Structures are given as structure tokens and as C-alpha cells.
């Protein structure tokens, strides 16, 4: 297995175990750096990514459920995440409804409870913006310990600048 593939597996496992993004960045860099110098096979040097991630997370016996990736992803979703999903749905639905109601009000249709159209538009936009801000704030980016910049990471792997 090559280093990049191993690091990607390791990051997925650490994410599933709720390890904070800045700690994941440190582990990534530490592991890459070691492998770059030792020229060892990653599994040979660190063991299977899942086992190593659990040891690092201090949760050796941890099982985030299931054996397939989608199943394990679903099981790792925490209460906080459900709150964001449900709260976010309610927030965007209410925001968009108020916004549209306000816009149609400007076009001469009767508004909700007879409220002024501009008020509905403002409240609608605020709700949508609040949700966008909350989403950004709740992101936990993987941070490069050397540069302090976040590493863009998707299931396809890391994109270091």
C-alpha cells in the first residue's frame, strides 16, 4: 500500500472516531514524515489504519458499527449532527418560505398575517444566512501543523497546497 492511500484511510478512520481536525493534521504529518524517511510499507510500520486510528484516539476497542463505509458513516453521526440536520432543514425551510412570501407581497399578493413584505424578506434572509454561518462555524477543518493552514480533504484524499 502506498503512503497516500494509507494516510487517506487513516484520516477516514480518525474522522469516524471524532478526533479533532487539528489533531488529525498532526497525525497525518507525523505519519507521512516518518514514512518518507523510513521508506517502510505503511501497514508494516503502523499496522492496519483502522487499528492504528483506534489506538491514537484512545479507543482501542471502539467500533463505530457495521463493516461497510456507508453504514459506519451513518453510525458515526452524533446527536449534534442530527441537530444541525433537523435544525438546518427547519431554518432553511422557514427562511425560504418567508423570503418568497415577502417577494410575492411586493408583487401585490397578500402576505402572511398581513406583515410588511420587507420584514418577511429581511427575516427570511437572516435565517438563511444564520444557517450558512452555523455550518461554517461547525466545520472542523484538518489543520497543517507546520503552516497552520487547513488541508482540503474529501473522501478522494488530501489536497495539500
Amino acid at each position: 500500500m502506498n503512503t497516500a492511500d494509507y494516510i487517506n484511510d487513516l484520516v477516514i478512520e480518525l474522522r469516524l472516531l471524532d478526533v479533532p481536525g487539528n489533531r488529525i493534521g498532526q497525525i497525518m504529518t507525523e505519519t507521512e514524515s516518518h514514512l518518507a524517511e523510513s521508506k517502510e510499507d505503511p501497514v508494516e510500520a503502523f499496522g492496519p489504519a483502522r487499528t492504528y486510528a483506534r489506538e491514537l484516539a484512545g479507543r482501542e476497542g471502539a467500533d463505530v458499527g457495521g463493516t461497510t463505509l456507508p453504514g459506519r458513516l451513518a453510525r458515526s453521526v452524533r446527536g449534534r449532527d442530527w441537530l444541525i440536520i433537523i435544525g438546518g432543514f427547519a431554518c432553511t425551510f422557514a427562511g425560504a418560505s418567508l423570503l418568497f412570501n415577502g417577494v410575492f407581497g411586493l408583487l401585490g399578493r397578500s402576505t402572511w398575517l398581513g406583515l410588511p413584505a420587507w420584514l418577511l424578506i429581511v427575516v427570511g434572509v437572516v435565517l438563511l444566512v444564520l444557517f450558512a454561518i452555523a455550518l461554517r462555524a461547525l466545520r472542523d477543518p484538518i489543520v497543517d501543523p507546520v503552516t497552520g493552514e487547513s488541508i482540503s480533504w474529501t473522501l478522494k484524499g488530501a489536497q495539500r497546497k
Partner: protein
Amino acid sequence: MTSTPWPAAWLKGFLEAAVLAVVAQGETYGYEITGSLQAAGFGQVKGGTLYPILGRLEESGWVQSRWEAGDGGPGRKYYTLTATGQAELAERATTWHAFSHTISHLMKEHQR
């Protein structure tokens, strides 16, 4: 851990103290520590064994670290011993000395 004359359980039990002692020799980083341990007769210590130990030592406040950009490669994490780490190492060295003395005394007659 391979090719050393020592039983694996002993190496496992003393690895943490050995890592502490290696860091005490001066600022160093992960891969260099594996080299020092090998030179000290600990055999080849795997990264998967070493880094969790370094993590625990740092959590305990016995070592501290700083990051530095690597030449071309990813960054390196350098470790140094803290004052409490120094005290911990001294404590372990003293205890070990007393313990090894006790065991040596007990086994003295059976030595070949």
C-alpha cells in the same frame, strides 16, 4: 521489535522509559528516536508503537514539541524533555536501579 537478545515483554515494559531517556539526550524527532533506540539495543521499534508513546508522554507533560517544516517533505515534530519529564526520568532510573539490584541479588546464585 526484532533481533534483540531481550524478551519482548521486557522491551515492551521499558520502551516508554527508554524513549524518555532518548529525548533527554537532546531535541529529537520520531524517526531519529527509532534509530537511537535501535543503537541502544532495543531492536527496530515500529512507528505504530513509537508515536502513541510519544503522544502519551506529551499528554503527561513530560515532553514538549514544536513543528518545523521539512526539507521538501512534510513537517517534522521535534521533542524536548520538560522539567517534570526530567524528574520522572530520574524517578524511574532510581526505581529501576533498586529493582534490578533486588532481582540480581535474588538470582545471583543461578547465574551462569
